[in-house]
């Protein structure tokens, strides 16, 4: 039986200082959710977001930080020669928030 993932997940996120907090994920696929943190446009961390709904990135060095909540989207198990998924991927499920230090 083909695995079904109904709807499109979505969550509200709020930034207070450097701490980001998410609301309940609506239409939650129930797969891995994580924070994607970029510093000056480069990915620097992907901490899990399921067990705790808040995260504060520990890096306090100068720069512009953006944070978005992501969910794993399963399309198929197929992977390339390097072992990376070719169709399944992380997708954004919140707005992007940002702060500068």
């Amino acid at each position, binding site marked *: 039986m083909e695995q079904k993932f109904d709807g499109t997940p979505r969550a509200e996120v709020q930034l207070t200082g450097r701490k980001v907090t998410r609301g309940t*994920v609506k239409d939650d696929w129930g*797969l891995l959710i994580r924070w994607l943190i970029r510093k000056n446009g480069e990915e620097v961390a992907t901490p899990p977001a399921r*067990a705790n709904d808040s995260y504060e990135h520990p890096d306090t060095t100068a720069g512009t930080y953006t944070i978005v909540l992501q969910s*794993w989207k399963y399309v198929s198990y197929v*992977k390339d020669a390097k*072992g990376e998924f070719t169709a399944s991927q992380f997708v954004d499920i919140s707005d992007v928030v940002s702060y500068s230090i």
Partner: protein
Amino acid sequence: MLNIGSEKLPLCSGPSRRSFLTAGAAGIASLGLPLFEKLKAAGSVDEKKAKIKNCITIFLVGSPGQLDTWDMKPDAPENVRGKFKPTKTNVTGVQICEHFPLMAKMMDKVALIRSLHHKTGATHENGQRWMMTGHDFNADSVKPHIGSVVSRVFGPKGDLPANVILPGPIGNTGAGPLHGQTAGYLGSAHEPFFLNDDPAKNNFKVTDLEVPAGESASRLDNRKRLLEQVDDMQRRTETKSTTMHDAAYQRAFRLLTSTEAKRAFNLGEEKNTVRDRYGRNTFGQSCLMARRLIESGVRFVTVNHFDTVFNLSCWDMHADGGGLNNTYLDYERMLCPQFDWAYTALLQDLQDRGMLEDTVVAVLSEFGRTPQVNGRGGRDHYPAAWTNFLAGGNIKGGQVIGATDKIGSRPIDSPVEPPQILASIYHAMGINLDTTMMPGPGDRPVRLVEAEPIRQLFS
């Protein structure tokens, strides 16, 4: 005395198991009725007093590696301990994989059994037969699914079948069709009811509960009466097989016309927040439906987490580069989170509704996976050691039973074999295995399973 649940019931032939063997089964078989229904009809048992429990079994088709999930060995060499790290749980001294963070907060409800093993073969089907029936067997001696046994002993409550398997039967797992999810010699009246559809679909409906297009309810009723007349003629020349057929037919008709059944299967009655909490996927919505079915009177529900091991993300982590190319990435991004989310939702939901103490929740799989990571980064089949777990009912949570050696390759403490798990489930459901028999092949009374419950599981 004969025990049904916690009730002691007088037997006409005397107090012993032996006397029941002599006299009890012939009566059961001759009437073709579930023992419990017979006794209840005779006023011999009060089901509420009997405290008969229910069971939800989650079957992890493909089988997770014990070293990557619930029996981690962080001090073992890298090619044994794998890529994941252990995390603390709310039970002191018990650690599980970091990718089950929500389960870690509910370990006080769960009893891990880390010393499971079997010796009959390393195919998925060997393990499925063991864990679904308490036996390994071939096509000549098909043994009944545990839910079918429960159906035979206690019968259905109301219009719903006693034994339901979601979302569908196990299909191709590599080595033949004997998966242990049939009623075997117990006959069609006790076959599991398979949903055969995906409850995560937007337009989900149970096909078997829909009156065919162009068919009115009254026309259906007329057809039923006509069929009953034909059956009545047939019954004059046949006996047992007709009885079995009747029971299956009556069950199908009850399902087709029952408002209660339609409601039980209707996930649309659940709040969106509840559906989200289980996960909007096939497995999560099946777990939610399992809770609804138990709440509506189904006694035994099995949720198959996947119906095959080929060409999809599943627990069968061979990393073979082809149709079995599951890896640590599948575990980390899909399988562990999906299980963690739905399983903890189910336990919490059952508890919030006051149902957990009456419902055993068993998480079972076929075998473990090889202690050494293979050359491609996966692990292969390994029936010599694995971990399963039970919760709910009168299971004492927050404990670990058994242990494996330093590399998770064999039990070194309290080894457990699959029939002991089934015996424990029966015991947890309130069934006394010494006094509750069922008719076996040729109507010979047989014990439900040839093993004793694991006493340590029970408080």
